[in-house]
C-alpha cells in the first residue's frame, strides 16, 4: 500500500533522513520508534509531501507520489495527523471537520462516522477548536483526518502530552480503526503502546532504520536497549 524507498530529506542543507525504506501493507499497523531528533517527524512530513524528498521514492497504492503536493496525496487516500494536536483554532469543531470534508468532496456520512469514533466531540460541535483541551483537540485532529475516509492513516505521536483518560480512548480508537482494516503508520514513543498495537515496527536512529521486525521481536532485550532513553 505504502512503499518508501531510499528516502532522503532534511531542512535546507541539514540532512535528516539518509535513505529510509519501509512499507505498510493494507490493513497493517506499522510503528516507527526512536529517540527524539532521529527523524521520525521528518519521515512522516516527507511521506506526506510537507517536506520535499531530496532523493528516493514514495509510492502509494501503486502510484508514485514523490512529487505530488500534499492535497493530492490526501485525495488518493492518505491522511495525516501531525504532531501536537493541530487544529484550525478559530473554526468550530464542526467547521474543522466540514472544511476537510468539503476539500475532499466526501459524503456527509463520513463526518458522522468520524464523530462515532470520538463521541466525546459531539456535544462540542459549535465550540471553537482553539478552546478545547489538548486531549479533545487531539481527538478532533484524528477525527478531521478520518473524515477523508483514508486508506492509510498516518499519526505522529497521537498520545504525547495528553491526559491519561483520553490516551486510553485514542488508543482504543486506533485499535478499532486497525481492526476495521485501515492501514496505520504510527510514530510512538511509548514502548508499551507500540507493543499492544503494532503488527510491525521499525526503529530509527540518526536518519537510518537501525532495526525492524514484528511486535514479538520488539519485546527482546536488544531492541529495548536501542530505545533506551
Amino acid at each position, binding site marked *: 500500500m505504502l512503499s518508501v524507498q531510499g528516502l532522503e530529506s532534511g531542512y535546507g542543507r541539514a540532512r535528516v533522513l539518509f535513505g529510509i525504506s519501509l512499507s505498510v501493507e493494507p490493513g497493517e499497523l506499522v510503528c516507527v520508534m526512536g529517540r527524539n531528533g532521529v527523524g521520525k517527524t521528518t519521515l512522516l512530513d516527507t511521506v506526506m509531501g510537507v517536506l520535499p524528498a531530496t532523493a528516493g521514492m514514495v509510492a502509494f497504492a501503486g502510484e508514485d507520489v514523490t512529487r505530488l503536493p500534499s492535497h493530492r496525496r490526501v485525495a488518493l487516500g492518505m491522511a495525516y495527523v501531525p504532531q501536537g494536536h493541530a487544529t484550525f483554532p478559530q473554526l468550530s469543531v464542526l467547521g474543522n471537520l466540514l*472544511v476537510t470534508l468539503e476539500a475532499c468532496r466526501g459524503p456527509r456520512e463520513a463526518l458522522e462516522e468520524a464523530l462515532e469514533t470520538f463521541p466525546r466531540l459531539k456535544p462540542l460541535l459549535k465550540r471553537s477548536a482553539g478552546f478545547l483541551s489538548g486531549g479533545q483537540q487531539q481527538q478532533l485532529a484524528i477525527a478531521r483526518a478520518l473524515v477523508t475516509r483514508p486508506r492509510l492513516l498516518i499519526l505522529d505521536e497521537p498520545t504525547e502530552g495528553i491526559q491519561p483518560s483520553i490516551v486510553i480512548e485514542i488508543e482504543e480508537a486506533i485499535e478499532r480503526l486497525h481492526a476495521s482494516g485501515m492501514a496505520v503508520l504510527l510514530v510512538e514513543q511509548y514502548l508499551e503502546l507500540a507493543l499492544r498495537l503494532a503488527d510491525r515496527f521499525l526503529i530509527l536512529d540518526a536518519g537510518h532504520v537501525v532495526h525492524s521486525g514484528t511486535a514479538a521481536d520488539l519485546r527482546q532485550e536488544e531492541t529495548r536497549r536501542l530505545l533506551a532513553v
Partner: protein
Amino acid sequence: MEAFVNQLPIGISIGAVLLLIALGLTFTFGQMGVINMAHGEFIMAGAYTAYLLQDLTGRMAVIVALPVAFAVAGLMGLILERTAIRHFYGRPLDTLLLTWGVSLVLQQLARDLFGAPNVQVQAPAWLQGGIGTLPYNRLFIFVLALLTVAGVWAYLNRTGQGRRMQAVMQNRGLAAVSGIDTGRVDQRTFFIGSGLAGVAGVALTLIGPVGPTLGTYYIVDAFLVVVAGGLGSLLGAVVAAAGLGLLNSYAEFWSDASLAKVIVFAVIVAFLQVRPQGLFVLRSRALS
C-alpha cells in the same frame, strides 16, 4: 452639542470610506500577510473603470461599475499574485519593494492612458441632494460599506470557500494535509481582496476627482485601519474605521485638516504602543 451632532454623520461617512478601502487589505494583508503597496492602484483602477463606464451606462453607471470594477481590480491582483508575489511569500521586505515598484508602474500607466490631470465622474442625478447635512452620495457609500462587510462576513463564515480560506490562514500546513489546495486558496484570496479595492475605487469617484495618484492618497489610511483593528479581523476593521472616521471628523472640526491628520496619527501611534496587536486579536489556546 449641536456641533457634535452635526459632525457625527460626517465622521461616520469618513469611516465608511476608510472601511471600504481597508476591507480588501484585511484579505491580502490581514489574512495572507502580504504587504501589497499596489493595493492603492487597484483602488485607482476601480475608479477609472467607473470613469470609463459612465458614458456607456447612463443613470445606473455606479451600480454597473461596482461588479465590473471588482472584476478588473481582482484580475489585476490575480495576475500580480501569480506572476510575482507568490515567489516572494515569507519575504515581506522584498514583497514591499516589489509591489511598490508595481504601484509606480501602474500610476505611470494610468498617466499614459488617461492623462496626468484628474478626471471627474459625474454622480448620477439620483445621488445628488441629501437629507440635512448628509448628502445622498455619502449615504450611498455608507450603505455600500455595510453591504460589503455583510457580504464578506457571509462569504467567510457561510461558504465552503470562505471556510477553506480561514483554514489556510489559521494553519497553512494543516490545511494542505487536510486536502486543501492552498495555492488555489491564495489566488482566490488575492482576487477577492484586490477586487474589493476596485469596489472602493468606484465609491471614491462619488466624493472626489479621479487621478493617477488616487490610490497613494488612501493606501496609508487603509493599512492603518487594518493594523489598528487587528490583523485579519473583520470586526476590528469595522470598529477601527468607524473610530478613525469619527476622530478625524471631530479633530478637523476643532482644528483644521492638516492638524487633524497629525492628531489621528498621534492617537494611532499611542494606541499601538499600548496594544501593538490591534483592537481585536484572534485568540485561542493554540496561539497563546
